């Protein structure tokens, strides 16, 4: 077949020979032909830098390099970096610079080239060198710190027995992330796997008929359509609303919806021109905005959802109408936010194969048990006939809670009996998977003469797109949270999830709360100013405290918002003074300061969401933690082990982690709703305590005894007394453990009534952020100089990982505020859809506050979503302080900021 000579080159210092087409992407050749899967493919367009390799010492995107160019050249991938780069790997681990790890190879390779030219770079040099590698997790801060700190340091990474909780230890699963060994969705290819591609709708709404599919395919290509699906061709994350076909059957409700899959040998499938697939489309008028979809004459996307309303949520307390009528100060505002793309650097990918009668799917995911159950449903299998092995997830942020390719590769493998694999293109990932809900919101708030909040009403339409996904969660969560962490005695909030023919809006870090906070926190600036109060003081005055009741009537304890706001008091005054000084002498740009709060209930909203942790010791003295919570970079593998270690009383170094894997780990639920540290952490605490009790009982020693795990035995010491438990003499259980514990924890909540009164969450987390910005008064550009972020974690399990969460959340909040807008059909790539680069990030100062929660493990609260919520409103409030521009349509792109500056100038 090949009519070109082999390409001879050096790869990682060794000679290699490639039998590849000359024009093939070098990234493909390295991964597929040489098995060097450390080189990641994020966009195939040079927009993300994940595939960076050194070509004769110079960093290039392997995806943009024809294989022939490597002929006679020296290629270095992450697997082959030496010297400086090895020290860089250590620095990345030490600084927590790798979270999910998908960008890490590109970062390391690029940074190694820079360090060879500039061994002691300054910050600006690092930012410029790494400007072409996108990271969606870290906010770049720790990456830049690591690159500036590569001198060898010998540290004992593992904390001692009893000192795990609170230790700033590097992530336990970090080594594979920095040396290229980590296996992400696209990195495992079973022998003989068929390559799978999907045929997707180019229309937002259309009916279609398939033509001569068999004739088009020929004998080497399998084609499967809706007619081939053996089970119920419907999936969805919330059982009552399941509505999304795995393969559309006769009509599509959104662009990017799959109507068929093709599978076969890779070279055959790659060569197919999918635009020639025999399908006759009959496009229909599409509804893309919620106002269009709610209009009385609008077509209905789904039967039984009149007005295209999927569901509404409501919270009502007191008499807001009367309270607003009599308020001393009253303000009203509106806000509109855009579709926001998760933009993880790893497009959805995975593989499927049969193990006996069991269908095994290894793919990137945040929710293995949900994947198992939903995939089984679509494929007509029992749940125990499907095994889900989560690969490393190269970022998720909510979107990888939903099924994507699982039913597609599952169908191919089930039908053919052969292994299969699939990796979404960037365009496919962006057009077919979920987004943050666009919102159109209005609100009015009132305060009395002393500045105390008396009432608030809020109403919002959330564009939930073509299918339900997590729309119900957003509609229910928003009214609960739209008050912010403040005492408001009279309150009425409603939110609706409205279907359109836009992309499916699902879960994205915060489930609608970030959108609501954008309106509520900018509105509260209006109110503070109307009342003549300092904006921070107004928030402190109204902040919830211990024993206060929320708008749902839930009484709270361990409330840390006051502490967070107090922590900002000094920086606030200093920043205000600095801005005033700057503005006195500058006209081209103006500086401003803004503040915003957040609160966020951890776990499902008044619904069960248990986690189960199993812990066992084998006869030969191995301690295994079955940890089923997917670690998508946030650090669950590390944090849950830290909690378990101190609960049990053995050092981290003794632990072997098992899972996640639906065949090996009990259900720890989904990685969402900031629940893993709290819920799975609590299960780990209980399991650790239970196993400890079992050991102490067997040793017949007191609760303060010290454990140590030695070869084949546990040594228990209590003062002068020592007991030895000979493990080999004990009988193993069905799981192979001689001593074990399995504990389940489900947060206690109280169902909400028709007015949203109840106790929807067992634990809340709190935070407040202050933004310092500089606005160009003629160009409308905004530079965020600093974010000071005070977050109440209850108990800080791991300060290093906590800071990483904050910095990453700030980056996503900054993107939401200033640049991110997904326009279906127009921004399906990472050069038209912009996320922050190294050069866009402000300094982030994290202030970790510990106001213990009565329910959380060691007092801990969730953090993952909280960190994103205050950033955008704090930036918007700072822009207004600087320039007078009140932005009500996001993102605050330069042309919008400039228009708002001019509008403010005309109004004043």
């Amino acid at each position, binding site marked *: 077949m090949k009519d070109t000579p082999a390409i001879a080159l050096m790869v990682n210092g060794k000679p290699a020979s490639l039998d590849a087409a000359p024009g*093939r992407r070098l990234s493909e050749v390295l991964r597929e032909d040489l098995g060097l899967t450390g080189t990641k493919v994020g966009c195939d*367009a*040079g927009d993300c830098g994940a595939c960076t390799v050194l070509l004769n010492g110079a960093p290039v995107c392997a995806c943009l390099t024809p294989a022939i160019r490597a002929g006679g050249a020296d290629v270095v991938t992450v697997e082959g970096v030496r010297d400086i780069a090895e020290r860089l790997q250590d620095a990345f681990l030490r600084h927590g610079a790798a979270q999910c790890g998908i960008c890490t190879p590109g970062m390391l390779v690029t940074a190694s080239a820079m360090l060879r030219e500039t061994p002691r770079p300054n910050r600006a040099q690092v930012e*410029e060198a790494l400007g*072409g590698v996108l990271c969606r997790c870290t906010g770049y801060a720790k990456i830049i710190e690591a690159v500036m700190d590569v001198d060898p340091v010998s540290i004992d990474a593992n904390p001692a027995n009893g000192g795990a909780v609170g230790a700033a230890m590097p992530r336990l699963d970090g080594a594979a992330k920095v040396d290229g060994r980590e296996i992400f969705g696209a990195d495992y290819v079973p022998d003989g796997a068929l390559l799978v591609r999907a045929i997707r709708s180019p229309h937002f709404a259309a009916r279609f008929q398939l033509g001569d599919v068999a004739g088009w395919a020929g004998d080497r290509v399998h084609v499967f359509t809706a007619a081939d699906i053996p089970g119920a061709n419907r999936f969805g994350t919330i059982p009552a609303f399941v509505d999304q076909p795995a393969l559309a059957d006769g009509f599509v409700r959104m662009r990017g919806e799959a109507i068929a899959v093709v599978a076969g040998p890779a070279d055959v499938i790659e060569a197919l021109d999918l635009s020639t697939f025999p399908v006759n489309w009959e496009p229909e008028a599409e509804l893309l905005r919620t106002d269009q979809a709610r209009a009385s004459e609008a077509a209905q996307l789904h039967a039984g959802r009149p007005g295209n309303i999927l569901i509404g949520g409501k919270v009502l307390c007191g008499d807001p109408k009367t309270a607003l009528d009599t308020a001393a100060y009253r303000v009203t505002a509106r806000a509109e936010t855009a579709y926001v793309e998760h933009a993880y650097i790893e497009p959805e990918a995975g593989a499927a194969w049969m193990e006996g009668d069991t269908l095994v799917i290894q793919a990137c995911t945040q929710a293995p048990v949900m994947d198992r159950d939903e995939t089984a449903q679509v494929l007509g299998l029992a749940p125990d006939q499907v095994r889900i092995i989560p690969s490393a997830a190269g970022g998720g942020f909510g979107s990888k809670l939903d099924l994507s390719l699982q039913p597609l590769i599952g169908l191919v493998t089930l039908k053919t009996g052969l292994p299969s694999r699939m990796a979404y293109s960037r365009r496919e990932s962006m057009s077919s998977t979920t987004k943050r809900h666009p919102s159109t919101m209005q609100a009015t708030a009132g305060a009395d003469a002393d500045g105390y909040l008396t009432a608030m009403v809020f109403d919002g339409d959330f564009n939930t797109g073509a299918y339900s996904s997590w729309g119900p969660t957003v509609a229910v969560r928003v009214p609960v949270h739209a008050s912010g962490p403040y005492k408001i005695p009279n309150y009425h909030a409603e939110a609706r999830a409205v279907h359109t023919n836009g992309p499916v809006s699902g879960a994205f870090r915060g489930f609608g709360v970030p959108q609501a906070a954008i309106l509520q926190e900018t509105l509260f600036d209006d109110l503070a100013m109307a009342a003549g109060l300092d904006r921070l003081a107004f928030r402190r005055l109204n902040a919830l405290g211990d024993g206060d009741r929320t708008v749902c009537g839930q009484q709270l304890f361990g409330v840390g918002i006051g502490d967070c706001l107090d922590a900002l008091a000094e920086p606030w005054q200093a920043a205000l003074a600095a801005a005033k000084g700057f503005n006195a002498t500058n006209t081209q740009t103006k500086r401003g300061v803004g503040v915003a709060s957040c609160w966020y209930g951890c776990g499902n909203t008044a619904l069960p969401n248990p986690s189960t942790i199993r812990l066992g010791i084998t006869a030969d003295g191995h301690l295994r933690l079955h940890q089923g919570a997917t670690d998508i970079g946030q650090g669950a593998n590390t944090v849950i082990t830290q909690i378990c270690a101190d609960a049990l009383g053995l050092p981290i170094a003794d632990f072997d982690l098992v899972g996640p894997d639906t065949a090996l780990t009990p259900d720890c639920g989904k990685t969402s709703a900031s629940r893993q540290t709290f819920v799975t952490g609590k299960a780990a605490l209980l399991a650790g305590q239970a196993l400890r009790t079992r050991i102490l009982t067997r040793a017949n020693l007191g609760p303060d005894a010290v454990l140590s795990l030695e070869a084949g035995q546990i040594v228990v010491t209590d003062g002068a007394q020592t007991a030895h438990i000979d493990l080999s003499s004990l009988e193993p259980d069905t799981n192979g453990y001689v001593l074990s514990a399995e504990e389940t924890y489900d947060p206690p909540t109280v169902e909400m009534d028709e007015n949203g009164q109840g106790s929807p969450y067992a634990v809340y987390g709190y935070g407040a952020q202050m933004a310092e910005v500089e606005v160009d008064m003629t160009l409308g550009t905004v530079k965020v100089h600093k974010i000071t972020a005070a977050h109440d974690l209850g108990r800080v399990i791991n300060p290093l990982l906590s800071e990483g969460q904050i910095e990453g959340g700030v980056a996503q909040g900054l993107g939401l505020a200033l640049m991110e807008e997904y326009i279906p059909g127009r921004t399906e790539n990472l*050069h038209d859809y912009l996320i922050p680069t190294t050069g866009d990030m402000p300094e982030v100062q994290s202030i970790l506050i510990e106001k213990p929660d009565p329910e959380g493990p060691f007092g801990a609260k969730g953090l993952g979503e909280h960190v994103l919520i205050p950033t955008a409103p704090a930036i918007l409030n700072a822009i207004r302080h600087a320039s007078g521009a009140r932005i009500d349509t996001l993102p605050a792109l330069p042309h919008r900021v400039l228009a708002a500056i001019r509008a403010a100038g005309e109004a004043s």
Partner: protein
Amino acid sequence: MPAYFRPDNLNEALALLAEEPVTLAAGCTDLFPATEAKALNGPVLDLTAIDGLRGVVRGSEGWRIGTLTTWSDLCKTDLPAAFDMLKQAAREVGSWQIQNAGTVAGNLCNASPAADGVPPLLALDARVELQSAKGTRVLPLGSFVTGVRKTALQPGEMVTAILIPAAAGAGISRFRKLGARRYLVISIAMVAGRLVVEDGKIGEAAISVGSCSPVAVRLREVENQLLGCRLADVAATVDADMVARALSPIDDVRGDAAYRTTAAVELVRRTLADLAGEAS
């Protein structure tokens, strides 16, 4: 498998080009993003093995930027201050990775309205050398790029060099790019400016604006008005309407047309103010 040609001399390349339509490949930083395929769609004529087409050479008539010169090559070349704007633009093209692969000439051939290379090269009075098996012709850059994704390249022709006349090597220069983020960004608007200052007055001005019209443009009217102007007055001399008249911006995802005009005017003023500051 589609044909993939990678000759090592120009004559062979031109002969191949004369025979059949082929896609010319140099840095590939625009070719690969245009396809989701795992390999370039053929037939492809890969120019990168041809000797003598890479690098910047100073001759008696000016500078010759070989067609395979990458942005990184350009940055590493010792050039007079008139080229500063081109080097500044080079560092704004995509990322380090892109600059190591992408070529200056390819940026022109791709003919994007937002091509970072076009405004500084216009302000350097660049000309484009085209060769085919039949011969060679030279076009001013303004005539080479004819529209959005359109050039004057005829079948059988390729760009072999960008030529900068010796006279354009005079003066000081500056490039400013405005985007919605710091790196890896497509411009909302950009300006390149070159001034020759004589006795504290403007002796020659070359100013161009990109991303505000289908093809980047020189602001001839503004340039003429600046001639003889005192250095301290250059920024204030710029007439907003005069700048706007030269532009035909569009609304797109990055910004609206009115904003682009406002931004272009401001960038022109700031570019001139920077240069005035540097010269005084």
